[in-house]
């Protein structure tokens, strides 16, 4: 029987773990923020605001029969958010997101690659594995952050699909 897999969002200094099916970018360090602290479009051409960096990982809620490894993450190659860039990176340890709440996040030193370069045919490899009888975090921490320019549209961004792919024995 296959292991039960979830995606955990990591927030706070604790940190706090939250099982998510949707990750909302905003300007605070919370999961499922609703409409609070939205990202802010900069007023001036050339300026960049950012979301807070958002951290997730792939988790094994139940143990696999054998091993889960070869974790990859990818999108469809086109994030359709005008004036915005979604960047991604991975790290073996967790760092709490920082910034000025309600205004902009601090530029992440981890999320530095445009996620659009990672597709099903060229996914981003993510370090990590888990074997029976263990449960818990499988992958490294995946950090994502949105950069917003003055040409961004105001309002709710269309939901974009991201996928994890992994091998399980």
């Amino acid at each position, binding site marked *: 029987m*296959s292991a039960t*897999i*979830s*995606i955990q969002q990591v927030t706070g200094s604790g940190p706090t773990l939250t099982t*998510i*099916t*949707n*990750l*909302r*970018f*905003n300007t605070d360090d919370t999961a499922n923020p609703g*409409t609070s602290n*939205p*990202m*802010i*479009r*900069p*007023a001036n051409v050339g300026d960049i605001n950012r*979301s807070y960096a958002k951290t997730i990982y*792939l988790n094994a809620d139940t143990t696999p029969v054998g091993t889960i490894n070869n974790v990859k993450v990818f999108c469809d190659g086109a994030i359709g*958010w005008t004036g*915005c860039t*979604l960047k991604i990176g991975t790290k073996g340890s967790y760092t709490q997101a920082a910034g000025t709440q309600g205004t902009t996040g601090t530029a992440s030193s981890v999320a530095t690659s445009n996620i659009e370069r990672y597709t099903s045919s060229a996914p981003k490899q993510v370090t990590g594995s888990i074997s029976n009888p263990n449960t818990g975090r499988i992958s490294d921490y995946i950090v*994502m952050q*949105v950069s*917003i320019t003055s040409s*961004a*549209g*105001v*309002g*709710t*961004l*269309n*939901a*974009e*699909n*991201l*996928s*994890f*792919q*992994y*091998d*399980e*024995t």
Partner: protein
Amino acid sequence: MNTTATFTVDGIIAEAQFASPGGRVDESDWLGHSTGGLWSKVGSPKSLYVAVSPIHDQDETPRLVNKELELLDTFMGGSVE
């Protein structure tokens, strides 16, 4: 066995907010000037809130310099409230 797990990402983007129309400017809002400035709203077709330095009459009532208002009005193509 090769397996995938899909999730979605989204967000909300809002306009930068500068100050409430007609509100007074604190030093923390407007560095380089002392307390006492005014925010003024420039009207249609878009709204723009601008900080203007207070010019004090003898009765200490802050007012705008007419030339500033004319320039803002021309720039925005609207009226000054």
